[in-house]
């Protein structure tokens, strides 16, 4: 028997003539954690779907526990001991924990009638696998994301899983919950269960994985021990280019501040916040969740009304009572949750880009010309190299990074003085992250004043020439240019 639990060699799969997977090799050792990494659209999910039997391969060989397997169906994959925990966890929020745990095995066993006692026994057995304790009669929808995930893991273990595939499991988790999850993962490892971890978060990959397989454009470009890899190599393999971590150096800072905030207060959110922002600067605002950073941003965009204090724009006192008013005052805001707040996913890309510049694009009597919209949108598609062949396509067809580019171009297509970016690269992969950062640097040097709100310290360090640290609604420190390091920021946060 080979040393591998699962071994795949020369796997090919194409969709309508496009190679999604091009001779991919992939192997998992029993009882190890392997990370499958790569940017969006690199073929990660196609590979997973071949393993789980959702897709059939065109070419290549799959060996599981030393046996050659020709064709896998989802049911067979389960029988072999392969379990996939999807990003949405595939749970039923309206059913109880017990039902969620037992339902899959009941269906697999071909049961027709419900036997509560058997369900409960199955559920308890599932929980005992990782020694997890939870009220079996609680409604699934009432649990936290972390608890839901543990239930999903327990459910997978019922099938005597030998390989558990987790699709971006940490996306919706807090740092603490990620730690708890990793503890469980290590626990599973001890039971000789192999874990395949799909992620693009560099830090997590280095923390948890033994092996790593990196894919790019349907090919695997690296496979081996994680320990043999530096972070720079990793990024290089992911993106296929040497990323230059250029620190932002302001070149074009105006004398007069464009935005002045004086003693701004909103009870329960932030208090006595004062700062200035000049054109050409990138100001970072960081702090823990609940430090008031998001509320402050919302106030600057007219979405939350401050109780007292003053906001001055270009030297003139201004009341920003609504997003409309903020836009008139040339302030733009890119929200944290771009999917629900910043994009209409089921709308064409072009319409999304031009959404906030319709006034400029409309002719006499406010009538819009379809052609102008697409002409305007094309400019931004080209400028940001948004990966689409046709701006008529829905925004939902793009990856996270490209979606973020749309949100940015939506604002930039209007003439702005101040642009507020809240968590600009959350959920965006390394390459697109780099693109977005580069772009923001250029914008600042072209004379835009930028505020980046982020808890990603490396992002703040790399992109800001000044950083304000917030804590419990107060500004607890401000750091300038050369002093901006992660350690210095952490010092103030603590």
């Amino acid at each position, binding site marked *: 028997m080979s040393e591998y639990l699962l071994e795949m060699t020369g796997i090919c799969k194409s969709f309508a003539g496009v190679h999604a997977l091009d001779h991919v090799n992939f192997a998992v050792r029993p009882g190890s954690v392997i990370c499958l990494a790569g940017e969006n659209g690199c073929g990660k999910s196609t590979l997973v779907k071949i393993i789980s039997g959702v897709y059939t391969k065109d070419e290549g060989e799959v060996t599981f526990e030393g046996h050659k397997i020709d064709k896998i169906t989802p049911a067979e994959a389960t029988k072999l001991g392969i379990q996939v925990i999807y990003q949405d966890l595939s749970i*039923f929020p309206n059913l109880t924990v017990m039902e969620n745990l037992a*339902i899959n095995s009941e269906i697999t066993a071909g049961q027709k009638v419900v036997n509560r006692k058997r369900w409960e026994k199955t559920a308890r057995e599932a929980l005992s696998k990782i020694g997890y304790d939870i009220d079996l009669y609680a409604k699934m929808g009432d649990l936290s994301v972390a608890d839901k995930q543990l239930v999903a893991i327990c459910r997978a273990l019922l099938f005597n899983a030998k390989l558990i595939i987790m699709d971006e499991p940490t996306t919706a988790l807090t740092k603490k919950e990620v730690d708890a999850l990793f503890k469980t993962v290590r626990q599973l490892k001890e039971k000789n269960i192999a874990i395949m971890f799909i992620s693009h978060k560099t830090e997590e990959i280095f923390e948890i994985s033994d092996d790593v397989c990196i894919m790019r454009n349907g090919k695997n470009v690296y496979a081996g021990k994680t320990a043999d890899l530096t972070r720079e190599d990793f990024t290089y393999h992911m993106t296929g280019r040497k990323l230059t971590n250029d620190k932002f150096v302001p070149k074009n800072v105006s004398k007069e501040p464009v935005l002045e905030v004086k003693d701004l207060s909103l009870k329960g959110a932030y208090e006595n916040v004062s700062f200035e922002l000049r054109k050409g600067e990138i100001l970072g605002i960081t702090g823990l969740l609940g430090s008031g950073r998001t509320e402050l941003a919302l106030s600057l965009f007219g979405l939350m009304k401050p109780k007292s204090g003053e906001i001055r724009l270009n030297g003139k006192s201004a009341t920003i009572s609504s997003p409309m008013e903020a836009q008139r005052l040339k302030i733009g805001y890119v929200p944290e949750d771009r999917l629900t707040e910043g994009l209409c996913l089921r709308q064409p890309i072009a319409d999304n880009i031009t959404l906030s510049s319709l006034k400029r694009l409309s002719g006499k009597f406010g009538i819009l010309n379809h052609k102008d919209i697409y002409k305007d949108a094309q400019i931004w598609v080209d400028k940001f190299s948004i990966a689409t062949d046709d701006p008529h396509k829905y925004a939902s067809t793009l990856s996270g990074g490209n979606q973020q580019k749309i949100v940015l171009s939506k604002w930039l297509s209007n003439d702005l003085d101040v642009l507020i970016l809240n968590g600009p690269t959350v959920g965006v992969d390394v390459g697109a992250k780099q693109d977005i950062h580069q772009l923001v640097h250029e914008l600042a040097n072209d004379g835009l004043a930028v505020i980046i709100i982020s808890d990603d310290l490396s992002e703040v360090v790399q992109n800001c020439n000044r950083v304000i640290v917030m804590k419990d609604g107060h500004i607890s420190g401000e750091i300038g240019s050369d002093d901006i390091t992660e350690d210095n920021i952490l010092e103030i946060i603590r």
Partner: protein
Amino acid sequence: MNKSMLKRMTHRTEFWIFIVLIIMCLLIQAISGGQLFEPTTVVTILRSMIVDGMFAMVCLVIMVSGGFDLSFPAIAALAYSLSTTICLNNGWCETNPIPGFILAVIIGAVLGMLNGWIIAYFKLNTMIVTLGTQTFFLGISMGLLQLKEITSTLPKSFKALGTSYLFEVYNSRGLRSTMSSLFILFVILVIITSFVLNKTMFGRALYAIGGNEVSAERAGYNVRRTKFILYTVAGAVSGFIGMIRVCLASQSIPKALVGKEMNIIPAVILGGASIFGGEGSVFGTVCAISIITVVSNSMLLIGIDTYWQDLFNGAVILVGITVSALQAMRRKG
């Protein structure tokens, strides 16, 4: 454990609906000077619950699966009008009503199958599909087949079944009221629905699909087939209920059930079913249908104009849907 079970119970819509039902009854009993709990009133109310209660079961099962069916009264109407017309023309069912019922069930199943086919295989919004089929079915009955009202010529066995009774009661003034034997069928349907929803994998599949269709598919349920069967059975049962209505009313009127869904759906929502699917119980639905029947039957009793019933029904829709939406919002966090 006991305490948490009590807590869980009070969190359920069904519990509160039950409380509301009891309070409502006591209130009406007091206002009407004790008329509500007179045996004749009780029997009359139970009798008028038969058809609506059975329709509510059909509607509930579909809502649990995440569907929203507007066409079940139209299916029932076309099934019974066609069935009674065929029976009349062939001289069937003068002594035995069963062929008429079988015919209606078959017609209902075929119509339901059409719903099921469109919904399961084209994955369309159920409300839009059934809005279309509802009108389509009415069109078949009125335009294509030109089905007529059948009143005095109705096959005798239907009339006989409709007037048969389990027992009779008298009130203090000597008025007589009979308990229709068809009430048994309502009770049986309630028991079957409850069993299917709670004790069969098919029923749990409906909850699972209503909760998260993609997950249900991944868990190994055949979602398409389940939906197809669901709408076919719902059509068959609707046809059956239609025949019961014909018997009870002693007449077959093709347009009699137009708009009926607008009385049933709010009741089912009031009973705890979610418009987003995955929630709802037989107990809650029976309580809710009881509330609506009691109220509409008591309006005369306590001297309120029956036009107020629309106001009441409208309010029920709004309250039910708001509660349902609030629950969904809480679930999403």
